[in-house]
C-alpha cells in the first residue's frame, strides 16, 4: 500500500520536473545569498560608523526587513511596484530582489555584531602600530570578524534557502509547488503520493543545506587551530 505511491516519482517526467523546480529554488537562493552577503558586509561596515544618523538609517533598514514578513515584501514588490511604475517584474526576479535585500539586512547585523564583539584593545593596538583606517580593517578587524560571523552567516544562508518556498505565492514554480502539483494530480488514485513526494523534497533540501553547514564546520575548525 505504502509502496505503490513511489510510482508517482517515476511517472512521466515527474522527477525531471521536481529537479527543474529545485534548480529554480537553488538559483534564487544562490543569487540572493551572494548579493545579500556582499551588500550586507558593506552595510555592516557602514553600520559601525560613528555618525548617529547613519547608524539610525541602517537600523531602520534592518528593522523594516525584520518586522515586516518576507511574504509581505514579496507581495509589495510583485503586486505593488507594477502599479506604481507601470512595469512588469517577473516573479523570479522579484524573489531575488527581496531575498537579497533581506539577506543584506540580516547580514549587516551579523557583520556589525562580529565587529563590535572584537576586544577594544585590538583597535587600539592597531592604531598604536600606526595602521591607517583601511589598514586597521584590512589586517586586524576583518580577518578576525569573518571567523566570528561565519556561524551566523551559515545559519542565515540555510534559512534563506528554506524560506524560498514562499515564492510560489508570487507565481514562481519552485520544487515544493511542483511537488504539490504532482500530489494533487494523483491524490485520488495514490493517497500515499504525498509521503513520497515530500520525502524526496526533504532529501533534496538536505542535499543543498548539508554541504553548507559541513563547509562552515570545516572552516571553523581550520581557523581555530
Amino acid at each position, binding site marked *: 500500500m505504502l509502496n505503490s505511491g513511489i510510482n508517482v516519482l517515476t*511517472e*512521466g*517526467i*515527474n522527477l*525531471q*520536473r521536481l529537479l527543474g523546480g529545485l534548480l529554480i529554488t537553488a538559483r534564487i537562493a544562490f543569487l540572493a545569498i551572494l548579493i545579500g552577503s556582499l551588500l550586507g558586509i558593506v552595510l555592516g561596515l557602514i553600520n559601525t560608523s560613528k555618525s*548617529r*544618523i547613519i547608524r*539610525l*538609517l541602517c537600523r*531602520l533598514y534592518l528593522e523594516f526587513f525584520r518586522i515586516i514578513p518576507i511574504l509581505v515584501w514579496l*507581495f509589495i514588490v*510583485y*503586486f505593488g511596484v*507594477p*502599479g*506604481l*511604475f*507601470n512595469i*512588469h517584474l517577473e516573479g523570479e526576479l522579484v524573489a531575488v530582489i527581496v531575498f537579497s535585500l533581506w539577506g543584506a539586512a540580516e547580514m549587516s547585523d551579523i557583520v556589525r555584531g562580529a565587529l563590535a564583539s572584537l576586544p577594544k584593545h585590538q583597535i587600539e593596538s592597531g592604531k598604536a602600530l600606526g595602521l591607517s583606517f583601511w589598514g586597521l580593517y584590512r589586517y586586524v578587524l576583518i580577518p578576525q570578524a569573518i571567523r566570528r560571523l561565519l556561524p551566523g552567516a551559515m545559519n542565515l544562508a540555510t534559512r534563506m534557502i528554506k524560506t524560498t518556498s514562499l515564492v*510560489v*505565492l*508570487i*507565481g514562481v*514554480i519552485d520544487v515544493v*509547488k511542483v511537488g*504539490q*502539483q*504532482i*500530489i*494533487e*494530480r494523483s*491524490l*485520488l*488514485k495514490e*493517497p500515499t503520493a504525498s509521503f513520497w513526494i515530500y520525502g524526496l523534497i526533504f532529501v533534496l533540501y538536505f542535499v543543498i543545506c548539508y554541504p553548507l553547514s559541513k563547509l562552515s564546520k570545516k572552516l571553523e575548525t581550520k581557523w581555530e587551530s
Partner: protein
Amino acid sequence: MMNIKKFLVLICSALFLVGVLAGCGSTATTKTDGKQEEAQKSAIEEIKKRGTVRIGIFGDKPPFGFIDANGKNQGFDVYIAKRLAKDLLGDESKIQFVLLEPASRVEYLQTNKVDIVLANFTVTEERKQKVDFANPYMKVSLGVVSPQSAPITSVDQLKGKKLIIIKGTTAETYFTKNHPEVELLKFDQITQAFEALKDKRGVALSQDNTLLFAWAKENAGFTVGIATLGSLDTIAPAVKQGNKELLDWINQELETLGKENFIHKAYDATLKPVYGDSINPEDIVVEGGKLN
C-alpha cells in the same frame, strides 16, 4: 541634550517616511487611472499586438486545472481557455498560462499580470467589488456522499445522525445554520474526513459536489445520494475591473459556444472520465452563459 537630539532625528525620519509613503500613494492612483482608460480603449488590440493572451489557471486542482505527468496543462478550465485563445487570436497555442494560487487570483487581475482568470473562480459579492465577472460556465453546490448500502438521499434522513464535514467549508456553514438537528463530525483535512466515512464514523459526508463526484467514482461502494443542496454558486471567467471590451467579448463568445454545446464537449473531454456516467452533466455545466 543627547536625548533631544535623538528625538529630533526620530521625528525627522518619521516625517520623511510619511512623505515618501504619501508620494507613493498619489502616484499609484494617477497611474492606475491612466491604465484603466488604456484598458478600456484597446484591451483586445493590446492582446492581439502582444500575440498571446495571458490566462490565469490552476496548476494543482484536478480535474479543473492541473499539470499532467508530462508537464502539460490539462483540465476543464484549460480546455475552455484554449478555445478562447483560438477564437481570439486564431491559434490555440497563442496562450500563455499563468499558474495561480487561490488566494492571489484577484491581485493578478488588479495588477494586470493576466488578461483573464479561468481558475475555478466562484462568483461572490466580495470578489465582484474587485474584479469583473463574465457570465458563468459552471455551477457548484453542496452534495452529500454516503455508502451505497445505506444511501442518504434527502436531508431528512440525516436527522439525529452523524454527518462528516470539513471545518471552514461552506458545508459547515450551511448545516450549522439551516439544519441544527443534524449532528456534525468535523475534520481539518479532506483526506481525514474521507477516511472517517470509510470507517463508518458517520453516515454520510458533505462537501462541494464536484469533489464528491470525483471521489465516489474512485471509491466503489459509495454514491452521491444528494447531488445538489443549499445555495447554488456559479463559476465564471473574470477580467480586470473596467475592462468592458474583453468582458463583452467573453460573454459573446460564451453565447456562441453555447450554440455548439461547447461546454458540454469540454465536460465530456475532461470531467466525464473523472465523474463517470452516474452524474448528470446538467448539475455542473452552464451552457451559453445562462443559468436555466
